[in-house]
């Protein structure tokens, strides 16, 4: 299943033709995000939570901390698990059931951004080496899908982590949750040879390919993921990196 829905061929041509002229259906610039808002802590049953809206796209992320055994090859590391649900609530094309390849890719892209940037100091989450550690579950809940779920999800995840309150548990001895980086994902879509950020759903359904670049505060890259069946040239990738770096700073500012 295509997660980007179907648009009529007339609209498809219209969007592609606009792109050729450097324009977009909603009059945005190619390098312009829709309105972005971050609400911290809407869910009290989670240790941390955040709701992110990018235009009409809505994602909720909740963080739960639980005791767990560490992985046998990482006895001195806490555990990070990212799960994403493309709720049937969010789109007529999403169906109930186990996460499909789109939901799995989404979760894994968010996971790699957090894991590879070492955003969480997992070593601080050890309670007893090799036996008992904190597991950080990040559950991403797509509520309304109007495009660019990846950026919304990654932003909601890091916002939820920033919102984490310490669990009321004797084993918790840290002064605060050991969050040390703020990785931000920016997805660049390619339509008719033009690169643009924050594709709307109708743009996603027309795009040739997308590339998500997750960067940290100093502009370096911690994760990338190309998607879609199209291709990128070398020049396009370098241009995408400049876009991702600039936009990540804007989004990071929303985290407060």
């Amino acid at each position, binding site marked *: 299943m295509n997660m980007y829905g179907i648009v009529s061929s007339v609209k498809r041509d219209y969007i592609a033709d606009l792109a050729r002229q450097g324009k977009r259906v909603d009059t945005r610039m190619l390098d312009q995000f829709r309105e972005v808002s971050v609400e911290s802590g809407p*869910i009290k049953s989670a240790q941390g939570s955040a709701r992110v809206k990018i235009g009409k796209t809505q994602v909720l992320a909740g963080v*739960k901390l639980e005791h767990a055994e560490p992985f046998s090859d990482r006895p001195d590391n806490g555990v990070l698990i990212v799960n994403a649900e493309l709720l049937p609530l969010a789109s007529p094309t999403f169906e109930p059931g186990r996460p499909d390849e789109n939901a799995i890719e989404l979760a894994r892209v968010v996971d790699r951004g957090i894991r590879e940037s070492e955003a969480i100091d997992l070593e601080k989450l050890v309670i007893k080496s090799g036996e008992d550690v904190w597991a950080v579950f990040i559950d991403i809940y797509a509520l309304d899908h109007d495009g660019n779920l990846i950026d919304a999800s990654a932003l909601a995840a890091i916002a939820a982590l920033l919102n984490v309150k310490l669990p009321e548990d004797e084993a918790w001895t840290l002064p605060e949750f050991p969050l040390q980086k703020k990785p931000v994902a920016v997805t660049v879509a390619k339509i008719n040879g033009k690169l643009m950020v924050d594709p709307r759903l109708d743009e996603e359904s027309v795009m040739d390919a997308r590339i998500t670049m997750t960067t940290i505060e100093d502009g370096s890259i911690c994760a990338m993921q190309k998607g879609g069946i199209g291709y990128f040239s070398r020049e396009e990738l370098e241009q995408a990196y400049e876009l991702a770096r600039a936009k990540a700073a804007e989004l990071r500012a929303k985290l407060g």
Partner: protein
Amino acid sequence: MEKPEKLIVDGKRLDGRAPDELRPLKIEVGILERANGSAYVELGANKVLAAVYGPREMHPRHHQQPDTAVLRCRYNMAPFSVEERKRPGPDRRSVEISKVTREALEQVVFLKLYPRSVIDVFIEVLQADAGTRTAGITAAAVALADAGVPMRDIVSSIAVGKVDGTIVLDLTNDEDQWGTTDMPIAMVPRKKLITLLQMDGHFTGEEFKQALDLAFKGCEQIYDAQRQALREKYAIKRGNKK
């Protein structure tokens, strides 16, 4: 939390409510872009979202009914909605709740108008504090109205129960856990027709009757709030169109 010594002190419940008092209730209509209809309900610490898709073509085709639409309901809890993280995916409890939710709603929907179609109701519990199934039905009924699905009337739903020997309205999680009895109920309030009734715990025949009395009162308040929320939404919409 440890079991408290008493759940009702001086006629007041732990959160200060009278036995026949609802928790604070908030209903928002049409908060999702993609769904054909949606509603958000807060009832105390419960936060529940409902969305409706349809009537739309039923797939796969061999599930189509030639003379009627099919109503499908899914009740689901977010992993972070409860104290201990819930593993994603349906469990036995959510399968049963999905079934009784469908049965609570189906009677009021004019399904025969849409042969071969399906109407999907998706209920997501984002934060849970007892009464999520009734809050879900309350939200779903509003979402169906928001989607423009023709209905005989709106279904309203609430739980009643018994706590420290007293019949109470709208139990919290603590009251559900440490109290005696929980009875979720849904009805068409105007005609007082009951479309969902479950109960577990202990009721004498007399207590059952008292509980029904209280349930009728509670559902009327829910019903008023549902209609008020729909009125506000559509009043504003009409206003905007000028």
